């Protein structure tokens, strides 16, 4: 696989994305305002935390089991946290503090896959779910005004949906269908690796129709689409998880547009090798025109230029995963309790392991 080498100049330019700048006074002034949401594990067990812009834990809610992703309502008043697959709860966190934290289970014949998103008007919440009896992927639909009661579902356009996002047009959902069948009888066992079929599905929410299903070329059939983010150009960035031979050097980051399909990005082989076949999180910093990908297995993260889709920089951080756009660049957390802006550790909670996804309240 080819790709441009990451030269020193490019690397330094990339650091703008990583934000080596001093923390701005504005950020310092944010005080105790909630800025991020992240699932966690600490001495008390699993939980979800609201963090300040400098990584201070402002609020912590206990969770019955390990969580994964989260979503913030358009008005910024509600965060939904979803259990890690096979997920057995959805947590609703009222960020205004008026309502107590609420947990609700999935429909008995469904399990959560760890991600979801709000409709543009905030009235509905969509969660990626496993219809395990039929081995089908669905988006469960919840009424946010009625205690997050489940009011329906629609096809996710594939098997094993993982992250799903609402595009900026407010009506198109994009779903990363991982293509892997799982069943609660064999939790976390992947039951169809030889025949897995990952797809990226575009769904028109108004008509509830799957309008496009995109796949990678056959030779990458064991690439599972996992994580997504849309950049300011309307391009969807995708991080994958590869289930083929560990010796294979394969592209791990992809871009898609509704009209033109999905394609792999190029980067030096060493960069993809360092990812260790798993991209744990993707985030867009629209203000700086940057996209970040994190790879906890490889202990590396990368910053890409969203305009020309070139790799700008790569950095090594052990067990890094959650990443989100902050005010001054990307903010990332790791399993060792570090909360960093760029390369700068702003807080370190030694008893905390930060989980897969970090959500920014500033980006809603």
């Amino acid at each position: 696989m080819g790709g441009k080498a990451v030269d020193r100049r490019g690397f330094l330019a990339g650091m703008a994305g990583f934000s080596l700048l001093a923390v701005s006074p504005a950020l310092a002034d944010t005080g105790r305002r909630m800025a991020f949401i992240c699932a966690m594990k600490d001495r008390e067990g699993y939980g979800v935390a609201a963090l300040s812009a400098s990584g201070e834990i402002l609020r912590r809610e206990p969770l019955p089991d390990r969580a994964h992703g989260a979503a913030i309502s358009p008005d910024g008043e509600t965060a939904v946290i979803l259990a890690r697959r096979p997920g057995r709860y959805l947590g609703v966190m009222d960020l205004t503090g008026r309502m107590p934290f609420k947990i609700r289970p999935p429909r008995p014949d469904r399990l959560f896959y760890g991600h979801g998103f709000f409709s543009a008007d905030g009235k509905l919440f969509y969660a990626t779910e496993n219809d395990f009896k039929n081995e089908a992927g669905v988006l469960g639909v919840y009424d946010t005004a009625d205690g997050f009661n489940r009011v329906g579902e629609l096809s996710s356009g594939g098997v094993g949906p993982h992250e799903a996002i609402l595009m900026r047009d407010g009506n198109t959902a994009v779903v990363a269908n991982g293509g892997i069948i799982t069943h609660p009888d064999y939790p976390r066992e992947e039951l169809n690796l030889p025949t897995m079929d990952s797809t990226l599905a575009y769904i028109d929410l108004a008509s509830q129709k799957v309008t496009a299903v995109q796949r990678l070329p056959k030779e990458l059939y064991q690439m599972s689409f996992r994580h997504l983010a849309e950049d300011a150009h309307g391009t969807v960035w995708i991080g994958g998880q590869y289930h083929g031979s560990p010796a294979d050097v394969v592209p791990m980051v992809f871009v898609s547009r509704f009209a033109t399909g999905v394609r792999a990005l190029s980067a030096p082989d060493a960069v993809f090798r360092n990812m260790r076949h798993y991209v744990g999180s993707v985030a867009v910093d629209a203000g700086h025109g940057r996209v970040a990908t994190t790879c906890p297995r490889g202990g590396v993260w990368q910053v890409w230029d969203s305009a020309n889709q070139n790799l700008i920089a790569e950095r090594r951080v052990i067990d890094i995963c959650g990443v989100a756009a902050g005010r001054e660049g990307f903010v990332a957390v790791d399993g060792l309790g570090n909360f960093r802006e760029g390369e700068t550790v702003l807080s370190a909670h030694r008893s905390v392991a930060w989980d897969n996804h970090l959500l920014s309240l500033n980006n809603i």
Partner: protein
Amino acid sequence: MIGCGWFGRRFLGRSMSVLAFCIAALTASTASGDEIDLSPVLSEMVDGVIIPAYEKFVEVSEDEVIAIESLCAGPDEDTLKSARAGFATLVYGFSRIEAMRFGPAREENRFERLFFWPDRRSRGLRQVEGIIQEEDTSALDAGQLAEKSVAVQGLLALDFALSDDEAEEDLRRKGSFRCGYALAISRRIAATAKNLLADWSGPTGYGNQMKNAGPDQPVYRTSGEAMQEILRSASEMLTIDRDFKIARVIGEHAGEAKLKRAPFWRSSLWLRAIDGNIAFVEALFAGNTLAAKLDDENKTLPKELRFELEQARKAIADASEHVELGVATDGIGDKPHGLLKYATVPLHGAADILESRLSQALGLTIGFNSLDGD
């Protein structure tokens, strides 16, 4: 490594101290596994346990081809008995490499080609039945069989071909389709076994990659990463045995047991195969070099692990004397149920030693996020 001085100068005035940042950096370094060179332990595991287990698997798979050739050429009680005995040895041979689901086992879906399980909706089984019922002659050629579903060319397909209700009558008949299909399966298994061994062995083999981990190696940058792979795989194997192959099969109470959920229930090799899984893990961590890498406080961990595994193996061996398999009835006696339920306890303890205590003692923190992607 990040420069602590730089962090300190910039943020001395903030709430975080220089020391805290430096500790953060050092902790990370230790967690990477760079601190302890585990190459000697890996060498002992690869050369002393893993590659010999693959060599044995090749040997027994070739023996089974010969046994089934004899059965097809002269079907009678003795040749059928030999083929079934060979199958038992083959299953045990596989059970001793089953934990190695990574590396060469992931090439061309080799693992699933050998062992398509769990087959939750009996998709594989139905295809095997279809091949036999329709006498699909394309399944008689090992080359053509390789092109079919992975579910029809492995050990569970052979288990069905040799041991389902109609097998006895079919296989005693000269020129039976079933025997030809069984022979083709055995040849496919032998070919896969040979490929696995070839990919593990030799100067560029996977074994050498594990032993010589380094920044330029394609898979493992440090010996710690290679060791993490082994610890994770061993722990996963014990968890699969405990949760899926035992607990899910025996249920909460003896009357709730559903033996047909167990792999190899037809050939009565279910518990024997679990023993092979555990014996392999025991052998992996029984070497002398491992204890030498542990400090005084943790020196006894390999012994503790062995104790747990032995407890589980003994309970399973005792239970196997009371379990009648190969019959299409559910339920299990109270005694074997109790023994098997007990076996899950030391299996839990052993998995915990591998995942947490031994990992930490070797300076390997299996990351919260890097452990298992999602």
